[in-house]
């Protein structure tokens, strides 16, 4: 971020939405700093040091730093950095390694999907195998939910974080809440 700039406050599009039925909670998550980071394999070490979180190099994996900063593997040279507190761009500015960092804090909206029916609800629209053996805790992936692209991170056995584009948030919300009701036993 350029000196003197303050992050623009932004109301999420689905801030006030709440969805809770037995076995399932869908909650919009508060705004966070997000960076789309691209870099070659040789620069992973230096960037991990600058960000204070080890950038994962294995497919479908994520890492979490001491401060709670998350790094999600999206592709062989692409990561999504999420931080609720501090702007990763400030740390990346200090990194000498060649990289591309784009602030996408305002592009994404995040939802938490939790409860014993979280997986079944997501699987209504996500074609990936979300069983724990295939998609364990800390696994993350860019994938599809219904008609939109999302990034999915498993934060716990029964808790997922879903990141989607801001303009898709209403679709994601409606899709998940409808799916939850339809899937209710």
């Amino acid at each position, binding site marked *: 971020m350029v000196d003197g700039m303050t992050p623009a406050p932004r109301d999420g599009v689905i801030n006030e939405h709440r969805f809770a039925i037995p076995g399932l909670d869908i909650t919009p998550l508060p705004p966070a700093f997000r960076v789309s980071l691209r870099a070659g394999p040789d620069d992973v070490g230096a960037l991990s040091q600058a960000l204070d979180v080890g950038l994962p190099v294995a*497919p479908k994996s994520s890492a979490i730093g001491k401060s709670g900063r998350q790094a999600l593997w999206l592709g062989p040279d692409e990561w999504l950095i999420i931080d609720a507190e501090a702007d990763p761009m400030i740390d990346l500015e200090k990194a000498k390694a060649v990289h591309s960092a784009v602030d996408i804090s305002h592009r994404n909206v995040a939802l938490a999907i939790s409860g014993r029916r979280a997986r079944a609800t997501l699987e209504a629209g996500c074609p990936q195998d979300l069983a724990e053996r295939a998609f364990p805790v800390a696994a993350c992936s860019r994938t599809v939910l219904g008609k939109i692209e999302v990034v999915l991170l498993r934060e716990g056995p029964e808790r997922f974080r879903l990141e989607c584009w801001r303009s898709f948030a209403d679709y994601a919300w409606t899709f998940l809440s409808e799916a939850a009701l339809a899937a209710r036993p």
Partner: protein
Amino acid sequence: MLLIACPYCGEERPELEFRHAGEAHVARPDPIAEIDDAAFEAFFFLRDNPKGLIWERWRHVHGCGRFFNAVRDTVSDRFITTYKAGEVRREVVRDDEGGYQLKGEER
């Protein structure tokens, strides 16, 4: 649903995450400014469109974002193999039972 093995993700993923990206191993002539119209037409427009084995590029667009190559049977829609972009073309042979085997890895 069809599962496609992404060589970058190292696992099979649902076809909804992928997008077809044309024929593979189409080399751009160099220097392209010196080729005649017929050669340019062949490079730019003409594709094999075979019935049977085809070498294609695919992109894991809703996944790791990478382009890769795949060998697919256009009749059965079966993917015989996939491999990273830039790797040499994988040769495939037909076995006695009508299935496909990677050349050099026949049973």
